[in-house]
């Protein structure tokens, strides 16, 4: 994280020194106060998010930034979350998708393999827990829609913790099985095969309700168990105290909101650490080498297929683990969640933030997730409320009422993603927070290009200086 301090931006200079800390704190405090007053406002939510980004970019020592970030994530977000649980839900989803995006970043960003069916591994994990963590095991011979919910489950809820490693294993195995035949070919083939594989998993999920009802078809599986809460959190004293603070009754569902939010945070932090360690490991450098020039890498002794396969399997593992978490959070899975759009939206997170750049990918994931579940939805709500009224659209003169419901902004995710992908590829292929290498590579030889020197941290070696194994 520290290497990004080298910002020469004028605006950022404001945030130097103790005064800068004070300024940041004021900003965060004002946003927090506004959010406490109006917990449902989209604008304040977005500003809270910019506060987090600001903390990351200000020129301060890492320790200071960590404390500021922790203050925001561990204190202010849960406090506002007491008033508006949706904020915690957003936080959890951002964490899950950031983890997914970091996994895809290993495949696409580090190793340069384009995976367009990434969500398939997510589906493997999600359906694994959905099948064993729900009552589906008892309904194998019932056609979808004919059975009712029972009070007990075949497996107890604590099995959740066993199924996370199991899902990692299952997804890794799937990844290796799929990658093995394809990874010896050129990258384009991998793209198309993963695209097809994503489609296959969706078709299977949709149709495996017969001859044996494994997935319950398009209706999806529900209810899926959530992991058991720690007993101290579920006690009635905690509930009453929190209700007092929040000014509204706090139930077990709210507690689960907090639980998943903190779990998401922990998972994300662990993932970031793993991704950083991987990036600078020997394996990570092999990935860079094959991404830049696989023939040269092979000549230097990098085992091509094994290295590619490891990247593919690690990416799949991240995705599978998140599948279990996501399924238990939603308590529901259906094939719809695992569409091509979902795969591409994770790809957009990686591209938007910056291929191969860990902070970039997290930022990209946050932006795209907010866009998906918050901004577009809010716009849709706004539009439908306009449709209720009698106003007329300015400029065209058509009443809002006559606007077809098909024009709902929430249905145009693909438009937004497509546009983002094209614009990013043409104007800024290295992303918002570029990885150092990508920035150097993509703008080499351009007018006014000054290679920025890193202040701290090591300089990554060039691909052709790879030590031979």
């Amino acid at each position: 994280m520290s290497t990004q301090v080298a910002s020469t931006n004028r605006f950022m200079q404001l945030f130097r020194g103790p005064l800068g800390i004070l300024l940041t704190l004021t900003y965060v405090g004002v946003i927090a106060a506004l959010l406490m007053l109006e917990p449902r406002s989209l604008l304040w939510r977005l500003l809270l998010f910019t506060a987090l980004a600001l903390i990351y970019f200000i020129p301060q020592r890492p320790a200071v930034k960590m404390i500021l970030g922790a203050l925001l994530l561990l204190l202010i977000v849960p406090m506002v979350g007491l008033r508006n649980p949706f904020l915690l839900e957003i936080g959890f989803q951002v964490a899950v998708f950031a983890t997914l995006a970091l996994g895809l970043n290993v495949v696409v960003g580090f190793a340069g393999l384009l995976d367009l069916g990434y969500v398939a591994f997510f589906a493997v994990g999600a359906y694994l827990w959905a099948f064993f963590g729900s009552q589906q095991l008892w309904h194998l011979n019932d056609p979808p829609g004919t059975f009712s919910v029972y009070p007990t489950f075949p497996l107890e809820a604590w099995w959740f913790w066993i199924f996370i490693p199991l899902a990692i294993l299952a997804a890794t195995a799937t990844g290796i099985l799929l990658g093995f035949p394809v990874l010896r070919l050129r990258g384009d083939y991998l793209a198309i095969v993963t695209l097809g594989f994503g489609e296959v998993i969706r078709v299977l999920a949709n149709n495996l309700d017969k001859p044996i009802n494994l997935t319950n078809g398009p209706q999806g599986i529900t209810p899926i168990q959530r992991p058991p809460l720690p007993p101290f959190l579920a006690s009635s004293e905690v509930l009453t105290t929190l209700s007092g603070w929040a000014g509204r009754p706090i139930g077990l569902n709210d507690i689960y909101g907090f639980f998943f939010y903190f779990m998401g945070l922990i998972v994300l932090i662990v993932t970031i650490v793993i991704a950083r360690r991987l990036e600078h490991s020997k394996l990570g450098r092999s990935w860079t080498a094959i991404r830049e020039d696989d023939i040269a890498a092979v000549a230097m002794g990098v085992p091509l297929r094994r290295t590619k396969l490891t990247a593919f399997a690690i990416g799949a593992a991240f995705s599978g683990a998140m599948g279990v978490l996501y399924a238990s959070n939603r308590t529901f899975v259906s094939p719809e969640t695992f569409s091509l759009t979902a795969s591409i939206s994770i790809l957009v997170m990686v591209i938007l933030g910056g291929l191969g750049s860990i902070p970039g990918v997290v930022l990209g994931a946050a932006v795209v997730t907010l866009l998906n579940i918050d901004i577009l939805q809010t716009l849709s709500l706004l539009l439908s409320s306009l449709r209720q009224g009698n106003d007329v659209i300015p400029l065209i003169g058509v009443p809002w009422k006559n606007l077809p419901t098909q024009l709902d902004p929430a249905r145009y995710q693909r438009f937004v993603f497509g546009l983002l992908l094209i614009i990013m590829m043409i104007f800024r292929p290295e992303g918002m927070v570029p990885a150092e290498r990508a920035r150097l590579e993509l703008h080499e030889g351009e007018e006014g290009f000054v290679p920025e020197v890193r202040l701290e941290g090591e300089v990554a070696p060039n691909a052709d200086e790879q030590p031979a194994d």
Partner: protein
Amino acid sequence: MRLRRVNPIKEILRPLVQLLIFVLGSAVIVSAFVLLLALLLRPTRTDIDIFQVTLILLPQVLIDGITLGFMYAIIAMGYTMVYGVLEFINFAHGEFVMFGAFAGVELLIWLNAQGILRTSELWLAVVWLILAVLLGMGVGGTLAVSAERFAYRPLRGTPRLVPLIAAIGVSFLLQDTMRFLQSAIHGDFYRTFPEFGPFAQRLTLFSLSIDGRSIDIAIQYKALLLITFAIIMLVALNYLVNATRLGKAIRSVAQDQRTASLMGIDVNRIIALTFLIGGAMGGAAGVLWTFRFTRADPYMGFIPGLKAFTAAVLGGIGSIVGAMLGGMVLGLLESFAASYFSIFSRGAFGAEYKDIFAFGILILVLIFRPQGLLGGKTTQKA
């Protein structure tokens, strides 16, 4: 590149003969396999005579498979030509198909609303259909050229992943653009092919009698028309690539861009023209697709695109003849899977699994013969 003088008649006959061999060959092989399977399964089934059922269904399944195969072949041309010239998988090709389909359908719906299509004359109906196909070609081609000009050309020479990702972006953008246009104009995002002309009538070829039941082997005018259109297009494309100056230029650019430009070929123009031809074929295929399956919707291009790409890889990507063979094999296999899978598995697995079948073939080809059935140039690297 061969600099020999070409014989135009030969260049027209050659692809025709090739197509005939491909169609007959794959049809015979797949039918023989299915009939054998039915014979083997016959003793296990007491409820129905599975061999007889298979036999009764066979002509229609074959016709469906062949029409489907021709459509895949036409769409695959777009992939394979662009790949041959730029070594780039144009993910947005399915969307050119979709735009062509909408253009054709919109034209026919408009004509229908004017009352022009109310005709029982076959030739007149065919003329209107040709008009729609031509419009689809125009729209598909224009779109392909603009996508190349604005999204792909600025990215030439960048790392491989960059244009590939841009192509996915173009694909998504086009899908929702069409959805938006249709929703804003009609309030609904899909359109249905208007019913007109005597296309549903059948042309009886001959009658068979199996166990005392007489079966007419008949072909719909619709299927006949689809096959005719497809053959004309494929032969024309073959002629264009193999027997004209333009085709020679395309082949030389595919072989070596730098040398081609040294020989006085405008490489940018040739690449744009390649996109134009591929996009036009795609647009025409889109109109034919909706003619066959009646519904045009903004996401219709994805699955045919994926299948056509599979067909191109199956035949050997970059090879036009290969794409024709690949399309035919895939179309037949898919049609057989869709019809017989459910019968052979006693209804446990439905026709939905045909997509998985096609995809399984892609994986098998990539494992055992990555250069495709007819591809000479290996795509393997390192």
